[in-house]
Structure formats: structure tokens, C-alpha cells
């Protein structure tokens, strides 16, 4: 469903992604690990369509369509979702209004009628349960005054509402205590099905105990330098990244 070929991307003239390749099939979970500054968050931003990054080469094929010319909102409506590492606080915009606008934008994109108010609220309730997000939070402004854990739960809640076919979780585990991590991971696992795929970006093996990946990739210096199965993550946890860096530089 997703094929990234020779992707190169700059920010402010500095090249961050240097010919990245990645292939993901329906139903797969891919973990991306790597040292700080290797380009993990850039990759997630570029997939989501953030304009401050300039793509200089390559392609991103999603459901047989090159999405590089699509806007961020078009990509979202095509079925891509980015769970932010640092979710943004938006004072004055309630989560309910935010999600109603988002859900109906997607329905409009797919030429479906907007949800009625009661159907929408029903959907909200159902998905809130999934991530144990309380009603009082949903009535508040988007992420405003939320704890780190609440913000991340809110990301997964939004994902549940929008039912993407590809979700990129950008360090969703950062800033979470064990209980919140479990709730977030359970939410993701409940949403998993044979048709949707995940890219899980993380620094820690711990998250992968809860969300078990089919493949693990190491991103370093703007490229995927090593791929393996979930055992690779355990090996990284134990040995760190130096041996991978050595391998890469000795090539």
C-alpha cells in the first residue's frame, strides 16, 4: 500500500532524507528506530505533507498513487494519519468541533454525506471508550492544558475517529507512563485490521512489546540502513547503534 522510493528531502537547504526506500503492505506494522537526528520525524512529516520540507527527489506511492503533489489535507483524506510527537494546543477549538470538521471533510472527500449530529456523537462516544478518554476532556479545547498522556491518548482517539489505512505514530510513547502507554497501545491494537498498516517510530523497545512489529528498520543518516524482524529491536536495545553506524560507514 505504501512504497517510498529514493526519497530525498531538505529543510532550509539542508538535506535530511538521503534516498530513503521503504515498502509496506496491507496489515503490516513497521517499526522505525534510529539515533537522534537520523531523520525519523522528518520522514513522518514528509509523508503527512508538511510544506516546510522540500522533497528534491523520489516518490511516495500510496494506494498506487504518487501523493507528493497532494496537500496535507488531501493525504489525510486519502487515508494517511500522523500521530504527532508533540500534539499542538489549539485554544478555543473544541475537540468535538475539530473532529466533526475532520470527519465530515473526509466524508465529503469520499462523496459521502455529512454525519448527522446524533450519529457523530455516537461515534465519538464509541471511540472515546477505546482510549479511555473522558467526556470532560472531549469538551475542552484541543490539547489545551492536557497532560502528556492525555495528549497522546487524544492522538489515538483522533486516529480511531478517522480510521486511516496508514497511521504514522511519531514517538507516541515519549512522555507516557506505563499505564498510559498500555492504554495507547491497546487502542492501537484494537484498531489494527488486515487492511490498515502502521509505521511506529520509537526510540524504545518497550513500546514494541505492546505493539508488535512485523518489521524493524533502522534509519540513519537519512536512509534505511538495516531492516529485520522484531528481534532487531531487541538487539538494538542491548547493543545501541554504534555497530550499525560502523557497518554503514565501512560500506
Amino acid at each position, binding site marked *: 500500500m505504501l512504497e517510498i522510493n529514493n526519497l530525498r528531502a531538505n529543510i532550509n537547504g539542508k538535506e535530511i532524507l538521503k534516498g530513503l526506500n521503504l515498502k509496506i503492505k496491507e496489515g503490516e506494522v513497521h517499526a522505525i528506530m534510529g539515533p537522534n537526528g537520523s531523520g525519523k520525524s522528518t520522514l513522518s512529516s514528509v509523508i503527512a505533507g508538511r510544506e516546510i520540507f522540500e522533497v528534491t527527489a523520489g516518490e511516495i506511492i500510496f494506494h498506487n498513487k504518487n501523493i507528493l503533489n497532494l*496537500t496535507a489535507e488531501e493525504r489525510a483524506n486519502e487515508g494517511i494519519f500522523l500521530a504527532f510527537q508533540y500534539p499542538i494546543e*489549539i485554544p478555543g*477549538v473544541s475537540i468535538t468541533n*475539530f473532529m466533526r470538521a475532520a470527519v465530515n471533510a473526509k466524508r465529503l472527500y469520499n462523496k459521502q454525506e455529512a454525519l448527522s449530529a446524533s450519529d457523530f456523537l455516537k461515534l465519538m462516544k464509541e471511540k472515546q471508550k477505546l482510549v479511555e478518554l473522558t467526556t470532560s476532556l472531549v469538551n475542552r479545547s484541543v490539547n489545551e492544558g492536557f497532560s502528556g498522556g492525555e495528549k497522546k491518548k487524544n492522538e489515538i482517539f483522533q486516529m480511531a475517529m478517522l480510521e486511516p489505512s496508514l497511521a504514522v505514530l511519531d514517538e507516541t510513547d515519549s512522555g507516557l507512563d506505563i499505564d498510559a502507554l498500555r492504554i495507547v497501545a491497546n487502542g492501537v491494537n484494537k484498531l489494527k485490521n488486515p487492511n490498515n498498516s502502521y509505521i511506529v517510530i520509537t526510540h524504545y523497545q518497550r513500546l514494541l512489546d505492546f505493539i508488535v512489529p512485523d518489521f524493524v528498520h533502522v534509519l540513519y543518516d537519512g536512509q534505511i540502513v538495516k531492516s529485520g524482524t522484531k528481534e532487531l529491536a531487541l538487539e538494538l536495545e542491548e547493543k545501541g547503534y554504534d555497530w550499525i553506524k560502523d557497518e554503514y560507514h565501512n560500506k
Partner: protein
Amino acid sequence: MNVENFIGSVKVTDNAAFIENTEKRKALHESLKLKSFPKVKDEEWRFTKVDSIFDKAYMIPSIDKDFTIEKYINAKDYAGVVCYKNGFVIKIEVTDLNFIIEPLSKIDNSFDNIFKTQEQVFVELNNYFAVGGVNIVAKKNAIISKPLLILYIIDKDNVISSPRNVINIEGGANVSIEEKILCNSKIESLTNALSYINIEPNATLNYYKIQTGSDICNLFDTTYIKQQADCNLNIFTLSLKGRFLRNNLRIKLDGNGANANMYGLYIPKQNEHVDNLTYIEHAMPNCDSNELYKGVLNDSSSAVFSGKIMVCKDAQKTKAFQNNKNIVLTNTAKINTKPHLEIYADDVKCSHGATVGQLDEEALFYLRSRGIAKDDAKQLLINSFIDEVVNNISYEPIKDYVKESISQKI
């Protein structure tokens, strides 16, 4: 153009009936001769040029009573209606008898001396040219949920209109007044309005100024308010449309424990210019004032906020807060903001501040990454910014009207 030439250039139709008598107008004429229009070197007019407005030839038409109220409003929403048309009072209708409204037969200038101002020339011009005015009283202890409507309709070319409202809210009353200006979109006009409001002890007044002018209308609006002990004021200045809008709002907290909330919103577009001057004087102890003005500027529009809090020597235990926040949507729009605080008492809590910024790019991307189109995402962010002002409107029909007008414009 100097003021004398301007006065001479105004064409007066024969049967125009000035409120003020000939003698007083002669004296005003003498006084105005010595005055000039404000210049940018005047501190309170630094960012607003008025010359081009007074270079035009205006006229005072004859009275035209033709009026279908249903065309403009649903009268059932109001406790009473005062309608000015081209400066003449053509209708006074009171449905709630706790309001007493009479045509103004004489101009009382006692209010003018409360504030020493740089807009005195506009006050005198209003006195000189006024052909219509009303005296409004809200009776003692009257509690009226529907607002009284003061409507300014301008539908003749080149009209100068000088409406004048003298309002007294008697002790313990709790009332709302909505003031709305509606201009025919194809005509050039100049409105120089003046309102004097006195709020007696323990009364509450909600006052809504809804400025929905036209692309070629000019409005000077001067409002002087005196607040007595333990009274409450919530005043909204909502500048929704108009090529040139200048609001002078001056409030004196003249009794122990008085409270004033001042809210403002301006959303200029194209070449519109909105200038808000506010001045609040804490003359007595234990008064609170709270001011929030917000602006969203588009295209090549411009706006000015200049707010001053004056805390006098005797005004101990004052709480006074002022905030002006702006979002500038383009590179060509311009805001000048000047929060100002002067304190002569020593036991007070005061703050003032101003911000100017653009739409938050991070928030915009966040919304777009959920599938919301860029323009809709902008709208959501702008609305949330504006709501901080609009949500303080307690009367739902007015809130709905304002929200609707805003969404049409933005």
C-alpha cells in the same frame, strides 16, 4: 480643509430642523472656527488621517419618514426601537414601558466637560449639525431582557448625519441596548454619532455597538459614559464593516465599586480602517475594569488600538486589566497598538498588554493533517480567536447575528 470651510461646504436642505437654537449654533460656529481637524501629530490621532473624509461635500437632506421596520429587523426581538434615518429620528416605538424615550429638544453639554479630549471638534460638529436625537431613560429597578434597538440608517448619497443619544439608566435597572448602523452599500456618507450614558447606582447596562457600514461609509462614534457606585457595564464595540470607523469610548468610574467590561472586535478587509480609542478613568476606589479588544486584519486593511487606563489618586483597590490581541493575515495589513496605563494610587492591581501575530502555522498544519481544508482550518483558528470576545455576548440573538456576520465576511 479647515473646519470653517467644511461647515460652509455642507449643503442644508431648507426644512432641516436643527435641535439646537440659532443662538447656540452661532456660538458653536464661532468656537468651531477656531478649531482644526485632528492631525497625525496629535497623539490620539497618530495613525488615522481624517483630511480626505472632510474634503468631500456633504449635505443634510430633508426628512424622509418612509420606513419599513421589517426590512431591517424583527421588532419582536426588541423592547423598543429608535430609528434614525439620515440623521433624523423617524421612529420611536416602545413596547416595554420601563423604557421612556423622547425626542431630544435641547442639547445638554454637561457631559462634555468630564473628559478633556482631542475629539472636541467632533462633539461640537455633532451639536452644530444634529437634526435628531433621543433621550432614553430606563426606569428604576426595571429588569428588561430584550434589548432596546437604536438603528442608524443611511440611504442617501453624501449625507452627514449627527445622531445623538442621551441615556440614563436609573438605579437598580438591568437593561440592554443594541446600536446598529446600516448603510446602503452604494453611497458615500459621514456619520458623526454622539452618546452620553449615565449609569446610576446598582444598575447594569449591556451595550452593543454593531457597526455594519458599507464599503464607502465613514463613521465617527463618540461615547461618554459615567458610572456611579456599584453599577455594571458590559460594552461591546463590534466593527464588522465600514471603510472608516473611529470609535472614541471614554468611561469614568465615578462611584465606589463600579465595574466595567469593555470588549472590542474588528475584522477589517480590503482598505478598511478601524481606529479604537478607549479611555477609562478610575476616579473612585474599589472599581474593576476589564478590557479585551481583538482584531483580525486581512488584505490591505489597517487598524489602531489605543487604550488608556487612568487610575486616579483616590482610586485605591482598583483592579484594571487591558488586553489587545491581533492577528494579521497578510503582509500588507497593518495594526498600530498602544496600551497605556497611568497610576496615581498605590494599592492597585493593573495590567496591560498587546500582541500582534500571524495564524499559528503549527496549529494550521495540525488541523490540515486531519483532513480539514486549509481555508476551513484558517476559519476555525480565526473563529476560536474571535470567540473569546463574542462569547461574552449574553443575549443569544445578538450573538448569533454577530457570528453570522463574521462568518460571511471572513
